[in-house]
């Protein structure tokens, strides 16, 4: 009987996260492991990598082992009428590992909230992301950014697609000097540089934005972000930081984006954000926000090993 409770650290976290999400009204969602390959081929822009494990099923149809959860959730939610669909999941996805370029099975827990998304749902998702990290350890931070604020930087919308993409890449690598390789007005570069360097507590974001530019469009976008940060409860706010290196990753995050880190784990363990752009491809009346916790990255966490150089 005692063996039932001999859980690994990741298994304990899965139960804690499930309890957290269900306390906020999220319902368990169980998915198929396979999806038609065509579905991902048509939406490959939104996948982190083009590689997929494929096979032919007994009916001759080309199938893929799921490389992504969100795309399947979005497709299943399209057509829903009114209200919010709030789901949580614990699923494995199959992706190419960044460095070795081999396929890996990645265990994820996460939430998706689909429907008429207002600031309240965005704030709740950010709060749940922060609390998810706190379930792992109090030594955690959640970086929050907003593509809308970047888009509102004066002159940014006039950049061509490749210049805009290169500028966003500078955010992801916190690389302000990389902007000098991109042709843009000096005012645009100046504000983007300040935004790249920004790292502050949730309550300090408003003051920091005011120092960047007087532009009215930027002020409106920044105000939206600031209001989301201000509505976070105090326990979540402690670990939240305005840090625009949280942009990047898959192309479907179009508004608020978040990346979570835990002391002792080298990369991010949580990633997510608003993906209205993707959702509207399937249903123009719906918005969406969500995040995933990468449970496989907790494998060496929980006290058994640590790097001691």
């Amino acid at each position, binding site marked *: 009987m005692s063996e039932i409770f001999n859980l690994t650290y990741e298994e304990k976290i899965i139960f804690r996260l499930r309890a957290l999400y269900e306390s906020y009204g999220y319902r368990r969602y169980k998915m198929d492991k396979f999806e038609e390959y065509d579905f991902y081929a048509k939406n490959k822009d939104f996948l982190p990598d083009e590689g997929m494990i494929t096979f032919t099923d007994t009916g001759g149809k080309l199938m893929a082992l799921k490389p992504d959860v969100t795309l399947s959730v979005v497709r299943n939610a399209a057509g829903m009428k009114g209200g919010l669909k709030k789901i949580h999941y614990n699923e494995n996805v199959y992706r190419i590992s960044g460095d070795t370029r081999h396929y890996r099975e990645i265990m994820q827990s996460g939430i998706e909230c689909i429907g008429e998304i207002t600031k309240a749902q965005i704030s709740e998702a950010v709060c749940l992301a922060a609390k998810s990290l706190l379930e792992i350890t109090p030594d955690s*931070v959640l970086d929050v950014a907003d593509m809308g604020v970047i888009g509102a930087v004066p002159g940014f919308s006039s950049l061509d697609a490749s210049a805009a993409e290169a500028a966003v890449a500078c955010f992801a690598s916190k690389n302000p000097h990389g902007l000098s390789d991109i042709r843009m007005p000096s005012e645009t570069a100046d504000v983007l540089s300040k935004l790249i360097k920004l*790292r502050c507590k949730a309550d300090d974001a408003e003051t920091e934005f005011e120092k960047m530019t007087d532009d009215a469009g930027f002020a409106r976008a920044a105000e939206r972000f600031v209001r989301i940060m201000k509505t976070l409860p105090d326990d979540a706010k402690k670990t939240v930081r305005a840090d625009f*290196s949280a942009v990047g990753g898959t192309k479907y995050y179009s508004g608020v984006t978040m990346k979570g880190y835990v*002391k*002792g784990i080298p990369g991010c363990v949580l990633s997510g954000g608003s993906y209205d752009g993707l959702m509207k491809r399937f249903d123009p009346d719906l918005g969406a926000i969500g995040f995933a916790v990468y449970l496989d990255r907790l494998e060496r966490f929980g006290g058994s090993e640590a790097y001691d150089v």
Partner: protein
Amino acid sequence: MSEYLNIALPKGRLGEQAYGMLEKAGLACAEVMSGSRKLIFENPDAGVKYFWVKPTDVPVYVERGVADIGIAGKDILNEYSPDVYELLDLGIGVCRMAVAAKKDWTDDTSRTLRVATKFPNTAAEHFRRMGRGIDIIKLNGSIELAPILGLSDVIVDIVETGKTLKENGLEVKETIYGVSARLIANKSSAKFKDAEISALCDRLADARTREEKL
């Protein structure tokens, strides 16, 4: 997570130059330059640990969090795209990534261009942007030999003064981008050792600005 600031230095001249900058920025560790065969050096008073690694491995140590920060050339960062922060251009190790070929070479666009390089991703991306079909020949050293012996039409490689090319009858045909050494940081370390890393970054940036004014 170790409470030391763990720094990966690239073996060779660049690493020694970078250490000099870090030493002036308050992170001295005298044993680093002693010529000892040790690989790890620590100064508990400064709260720093250094280790010498192969230059192409610096981003790996940093990405994996074993090193909090490291020094890596922009050529290596562009080639391997590690998931790290690129906090500062140190302004040392200045050179360029270039396409080079024999002096009398001209491009025959009716044929696939054979490109020898240590940087296959960089070469592929450069010629992909130009829409030029290429055959990449991955080499690990003495790249200049390739066009001389007819293994390739051109090379894509780092060029500093251009002396090695000139002595072998080659010349730069095109500069792809400028290269210099960058201070890179593990993304998680940058959150939890933010104060130390930011302060170091500021000191290095100030030192670089003073150097440029001289």
